[in-house]
């Protein structure tokens, strides 16, 4: 069979090459139909031949043609394909290309292969560099917010260099990793700078993700870095500079006066149960203990601790193409100071991409990315005190330096703890440095016309160092001794993919695909040390004189795989794709290491059928469907073993502590995904994509709760399902398009619901501050589980919670209120995951001006505003500053006060304990970004030898509209070690960011 195919192909090839003896040349210039700007890099092909050239920087081309008439085929990313008839010898042909609003013929990188958009059978969203450039950050994730249907991006922290939480189509695992897999230039993992990104493809259903098998449960994000597009060397430079300010949301602390008045409530004459209460505020006592002069001491701790901070981003690149070599070189520098004192982040990144064409059979690609970053992080306690210290305490001494305060200080210090965070910040730092190298080697060898061997390989290594330093001058536990702690992390690994690709075409049938093997291995080595007893002024481990501690450990993981894919299409109307991956992972016991991940998908491009041909209304219509399985193994090494950990000592001798229960049959968690989609193009200007999906994650890798009395909290098991169902809608529309004015809109929305099934028993996870979430059959992920707050008892001013009574079968028979917290019924109280979220973005162009407004919305999730436990504390902690109460809040004043919403400070036992009192609606709508730019007229820029100059102003995080009480409602949904998903603690506030940008190309 193969021999026959081979023969067939050779014949086809022979037919094509017989030819053109007398060559003449046609030359001309290609411009954009919209603004008559020259288009460099347009591919100009002679129809029926293999002659292809591309236009140079001024849009000019010259191509050899046979005598007589011939046809040129012009293709260029972002423009409609055009065929033009020319006569041999013709020169100065002017061709105008129309922009392709719908970009259906663009090539999409879908991981191991690339496809034309029209040939896709899976749910895929492509985001181009153009769509990303409005937001300036060091993280691509933040740039994607609101631009991809089904992608939830939560910027939960404003700390310099912070990365957002990213979730695709909801959360489908409980204890395994939930972040999408990143694939850079076709290889899993990898490092890159956002400025170097050419495009991002988000793979959403199993049709495309199953090829990544055991690593693809949470979806795949494919990043493609820039490559040369045309012959002539072109430079691009970008400068962005501006500043950021902290966005406290509704966490506005009380001023001196506000707090003063608020504290009068603490002096109400009321003892619960006493017979002689007058319920009057004892002002005499109040003024005796809170002198009026306090009103003159008004220091805003948040404003002293958070200040506006500069940000810079510089980028320079060069790209070009010669006959033998394509190259791209990019350099970026990003520098961001944090709004919180003594925090910052900077990163430098160098990338070189080169493809060398040894012959028309062999290409070798060498890509290298070097990056280094350094910065300073912060201590949670410093942020905590920056919000909670009292406005009556002056942070500074007479000389203007942060005042030193500790337990022995004799001057009056109102705040609960004798701590001045500004002094601590000045005398400590939490710095980190990192260095990262990626080298990719790709080899493409066209063995025959239909068979190509392609190999892609990456070696990566990184080294990171984190340091915590507290000077002996700082108040607190290290006063007089100082403290130094360093942690070094070395990470290295390889990824190697070897594929044989094939492509056939016979008549109306075309068949292509690949088969091959892949290997991944990575190792991490940690080592660290700490100690105290530092001489003042020095900060290296050598001078640490006591309490020296060392620690270190290693991790490793391996994955080896076989993978294959076959694509078939008939007449460019019917498409069928099947893929299969077979993975072996070192995470499981030897007999349980291998898993299979198949997928099948199909599409019918209805608009290519005759009955729709030439329709001016419905110019594109495609129906897609897919089914497949992906998996997860990413739970860390050796989870199947019964283990004793050897990390402790007793009396300076090593100790072994029971660490993990054995689970020898532990294996893959697998996600069965069904997806159906419809792509519609209307009036050649509106694109609409709808997808519905149902994803059932089976055999969850679950930490099943054990009775604590066995000495273990959990045991790893394969148990339970998570079912995610959803619908996604994406619309892009070119509303108005003419010479001087364009208006385009894109809109995405997705509804996702998830449900847990098949759990052996309910699991309650209780995190810090006794905030619990329940995992139960029929329930949602991250469902809060706490007493229900019923407000204030009008007669006593005491807090009220709901108490349910049950009959024998467990059905609720009654509801009553109780002021005894221990009697309150713990109830399911809503999930931290939104019901729907999406983005609405508009772009306007008038002549050379461009305005882009991006917004993002999120609806239906709960956020626990843990700050309120401290900042709305009913006098429990009178020496913490309090939040400015919402207008409708009222503290109880006496028996019969039915208007009261907050308990009496005299009768507030347990009122700040975890309950739905602080569980708030997390819905919001935010104006994510406004970007205004102006493209200088060509006449001006060419005076300084520039091809184009664009200047712009951008504002990020402009406004958030929400009823949430607390810091801004964007709250982490990471089920990590410290946080409970959906709990907003004293976090590093998000930033408003204002930037001035200039882009040059020359």
């Amino acid at each position, binding site marked *: 069979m193969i021999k026959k195919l081979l023969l067939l192909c050779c014949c086809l090839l022979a037919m094509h090459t017989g030819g053109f003896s007398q060559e003449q040349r046609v030359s001309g210039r290609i411009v954009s139909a919209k603004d008559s700007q020259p288009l460099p890099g347009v591919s100009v092909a002679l129809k029926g031949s293999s002659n292809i050239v591309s236009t140079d920087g001024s849009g000019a081309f010259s191509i050899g043609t046979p005598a007589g008439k011939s046809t040129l085929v012009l293709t260029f990313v972002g423009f409609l394909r055009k065929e033009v008839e020319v006569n041999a010898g013709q020169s100065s042909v002017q061709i105008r290309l129309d922009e392709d609003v719908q970009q259906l013929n663009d090539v999409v990188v879908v991981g191991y292969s690339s496809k034309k958009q029209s040939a896709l059978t899976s749910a895929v969203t492509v985001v181009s560099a153009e769509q990303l450039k409005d937001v300036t950050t060091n993280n691509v994730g933040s740039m994607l917010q609101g631009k991809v249907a089904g992608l939830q991006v939560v910027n939960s922290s404003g700390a310099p260099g912070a990365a957002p939480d990213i979730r695709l189509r909801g959360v489908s695992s409980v204890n395994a990793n939930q972040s999408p897999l990143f694939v850079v230039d076709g290889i899993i993992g990898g490092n890159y700078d956002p400025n170097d990104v050419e495009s991002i493809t988000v793979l959403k259903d199993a049709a495309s993700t199953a090829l990544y098998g055991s690593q693809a449960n949470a979806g795949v994000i494919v990043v493609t870095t820039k490559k040369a597009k045309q012959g002539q060397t072109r430079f691009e430079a970008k400068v962005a500079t501006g500043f950021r300010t902290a966005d406290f949301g509704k966490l506005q602390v009380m001023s001196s006066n506000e707090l003063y008045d608020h504290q009068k409530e603490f002096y109400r004459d009321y003892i619960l149960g006493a017979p002689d209460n007058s319920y009057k505020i004892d002002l005499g006592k109040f003024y005796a203990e809170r002198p009026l002069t306090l009103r003159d001491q008004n220091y805003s701790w948040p404003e002293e601790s958070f200040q506006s901070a500069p940000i810079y981003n510089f980028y320079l690149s060069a790209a070009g193409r010669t006959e033998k070599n394509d190259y791209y070189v990019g350099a970026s520098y990003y520098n961001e100071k944090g709004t919180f004192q003594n925090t910052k982040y900077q990163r430098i990144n160098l990338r070189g991409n080169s493809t060398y064409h040894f012959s028309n059979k062999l290409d070798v690609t060498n890509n290298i990315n070097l990056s280094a970053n350094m910065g300073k992080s912060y201590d949670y306690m410093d942020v905590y005190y920056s919000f909670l210290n009292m406005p009556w305490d002056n942070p500074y001494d007479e000389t203007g330096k942060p005042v030193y305060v500790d337990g022995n200080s004799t001057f009056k210090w109102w705040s609960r703890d004798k701590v001045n965070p500004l002094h601590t910040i000045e005398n400590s730092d939490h710095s980190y440095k990192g260095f990262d190298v990626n080298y990719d080697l790709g080899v493409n060898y066209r063995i025959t016309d239909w068979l190509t061997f392609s190999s892609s390989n990456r070696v990566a290594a990184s080294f990171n160092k984190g340091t915590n330093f507290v000077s002996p001058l700082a108040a607190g536990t290290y006063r007089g001794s100082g403290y130094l702690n360093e942690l070094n992390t070395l990470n290295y690994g390889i990824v190697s993919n070897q594929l044989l690709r094939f492509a056939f075409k016979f008549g109306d049938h075309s068949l292509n695909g690949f088969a091959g093997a892949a290997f991944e291995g990575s190792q991490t080595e940690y080592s660290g040390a700490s100690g105290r007893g530092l001489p003042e002024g020095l900060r290296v481990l050598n001078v640490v004189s006591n309490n020296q501690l060392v620690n270190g450990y290693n991790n490793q993981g391996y994955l080896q795989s076989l993978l294959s894919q076959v694509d078939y299409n008939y007449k460019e109307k019917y498409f069928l794709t099947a893929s299969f991956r077979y993975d072996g992972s070192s995470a499981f016991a030897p007999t349980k290491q291998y898993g299979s991940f198949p997928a099948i998908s199909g599409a019918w491009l209805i608009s290519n059928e005759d009955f729709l041909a030439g329709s001016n209304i419905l110019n594109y219509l495609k129906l897609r469907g897919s089914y497949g399985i992906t998996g997860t193994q990413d739970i860390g090494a050796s989870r199947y073993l019964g283990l004793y950990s050897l990390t402790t*000592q007793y009396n300076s*001798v090593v100790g072994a502590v029971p660490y993990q229960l054995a689970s020898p049959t532990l294996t893959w968690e697998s996600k069965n995904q069904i997806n159906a989609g419809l792509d519609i193009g209307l009036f050649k200007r509106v694109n609409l994509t709808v997808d519905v999906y149902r994803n059932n994650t089976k055999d969850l890798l679950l930490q099943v709760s054990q009775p604590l009395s066995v000495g273990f909290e959990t045991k790893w098991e394969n148990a339970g399902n998570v079912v995610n169902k959803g619908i996604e809608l994406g619309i892009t529309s070119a509303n108005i398009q003419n010479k001087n004015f364009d208006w385009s809109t894109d809109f995405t929305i997705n509804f996702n619901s998830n449900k847990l099934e098949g759990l052996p028993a309910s699991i309650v996870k209780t995190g810090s501050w006794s905030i619990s979430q329940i995992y139960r059959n029929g329930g949602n992920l991250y469902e809060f589980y706490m007493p229900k707050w019923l407000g204030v008892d009008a007669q006593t001013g005491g807090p009220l919670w709901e108490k349910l009574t049950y009959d024998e079968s467990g059905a609720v028979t009654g509801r009553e209120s109780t002021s005894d917290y221990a009697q309150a019924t713990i109830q399911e109280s809503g999930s931290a995951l939104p019901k729907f979220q999406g983005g609405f973005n508009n772009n306007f162009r008038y002549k050379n001006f461009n305005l882009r407004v991006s917004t993002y919305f999120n609806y239906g999730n709960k956020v626990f505003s843990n700050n309120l436990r401290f900042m709305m504390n009913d006098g429990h902690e009178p020496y913490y500053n309090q939040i400015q109460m919402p207008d409708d809040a009222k503290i109880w004043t006496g028996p019969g006060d039915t208007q009261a919403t907050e308990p009496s400070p005299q009768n507030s036992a347990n009122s700040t304990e975890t309950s739905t009192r602080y569980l708030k609606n997390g819905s919001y709508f935010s104006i994510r970004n406004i970007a205004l730019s102006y493209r200088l007229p060509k006449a001006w820029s060419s005076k300084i030898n520039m091809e184009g100059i664009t200047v712009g102003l951008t504002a990020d995080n402009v406004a958030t509209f929400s009823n949430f009480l607390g810091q801004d409602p964007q709250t982490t949904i990471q089920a990590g070690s410290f946080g409970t998903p959906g709990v907003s603690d004293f976090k590093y506030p998000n930033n408003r960011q204002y930037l001035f940008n200039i882009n040059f190309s020359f």
Partner: protein
Amino acid sequence: MKKKIFTLFMLFVAASSGCKKLEVNPSDAISTGTLVTTNDGLTNALNGAYALLKDHIAFNGTVDNNNMYLRQFYQLSDFASDDITCGQITEDPLFNSFTLGHSPSQANTRYFWYVSYKIITGVNTVIDAVEKLPDPDAKTKQLLGECYFLRALSHFNLVRLFGQPYSIAPDAPGIILRTNLTDEGIKARSTIAEVYASVLADAEQAAALMTQPRGVQYASAEAANGLLARVNLYKEDNAKAIEYANKVINSGRFSLSTKATYPSLFANATTSPETIFCIAFTAADDYGKFGSIASMIYSDGNSGWGEEFASSSLRAAMAAHPEDVRWSYIVPSKDASGTVQKKNGVEMYYITKFSFQNGQPNLSSPIMFRLAEMYLIRAEAEAKTGATAAALDDLDMIRKNRGLETALYNKSLPQGSNALDLVLAEKRIEMAFEGHRTYDVFRNKRSLNKNYWGYHILGLKETDIDLGKTPSGYQNLSVPYTSPRIIYYLPVDEILTNPLAIQNP
């Protein structure tokens, strides 16, 4: 060129097709199967069980520095007593011990329960492995004895915190006994009496097995006998309590600290002649402000929170004898003018029984058993069996070593008092802050009187405090032994996963 390319191609194929064995072993852990097959492994596992008494291990995915077995034990025991008062309302669940606002989800009881059973699981693994050995030598038997001891002590501390006193309700639910590796995870609570029987059996076995003492940082036959004396006293088997106390007193290994050495006993626990068994904290275990036992009850200005203080009730009980050297562990925080400072209206009398090992404010090796307690156990048992003179002699033995040479009983009961009252009063002062007081009060069916200022009083504000008066009109000023809140709720985690475990009322 073609050949070169072909070679390259073959190299790639070879590199990728080399099917690797995908086996990875952890770098800092050992599989349970391997551990039990070596002597070193078993010794390490026993050492690990001791380490769990002092370590902060991950719980609920987090290493919370508040979580330490001993810190939790002392706080759950003594913050509920009348010896310590609260000077600061706090979100830390330690506050629940003062207010009795207990909850099944409070982090400290949950962690304590969890680590107790982790210790038990660890020693059960060693016991299981050693008992399969045909003829263990004396050294191995010592290890085995220490395992039995730790199991007995862990079960006993659990039953004290989560089960009613034996003397009140021996048939009430106690705790879940874990004495082997084969029982189902889902298991009901044994009765108090069953738990006591198991603890006594383990401790007796421990006493018999341990013949090679390894220092006071490790369990010994005397530590086991001390435990037997304590448990029998709680069980009101007074004869046995006296018998085991005598075994320790007469062992000749220990002597009481004197008036001169008592003030440094707790800073030098590992070398003091009075220490029978203490938990060794080394310099590496100096946890500072966020994780030490001392940091809640003492601060040098920077070292700790220092928010809980020696109560006015305890100080009143000691007021008659300012010469008593036991005052040396109650240190007032004074301002420049020499006045005792107040925290939120409560006088700040720091407690220093857990400080000053190596001079460090947060470091000590907490004493689990010391000789003075043996005299007090004997005295209480004697008092209860009518041997008043002997009981008073035991009290005098202590008093003359504490600077009270001029205030001895000399076998005669002061007018209007009874021997048991005197024993309990002496014990309160001698063993203050060491985790005895609440048990001694409630098992003797007495009420705890907390009629003094402090934030155990719900809704109290600083402005309500008038140190010239005793508080009145508030709830929570007295805790009768019949209160269900003299013990804690079982942790919510156990209730949810173990349907046979019935919650405390």
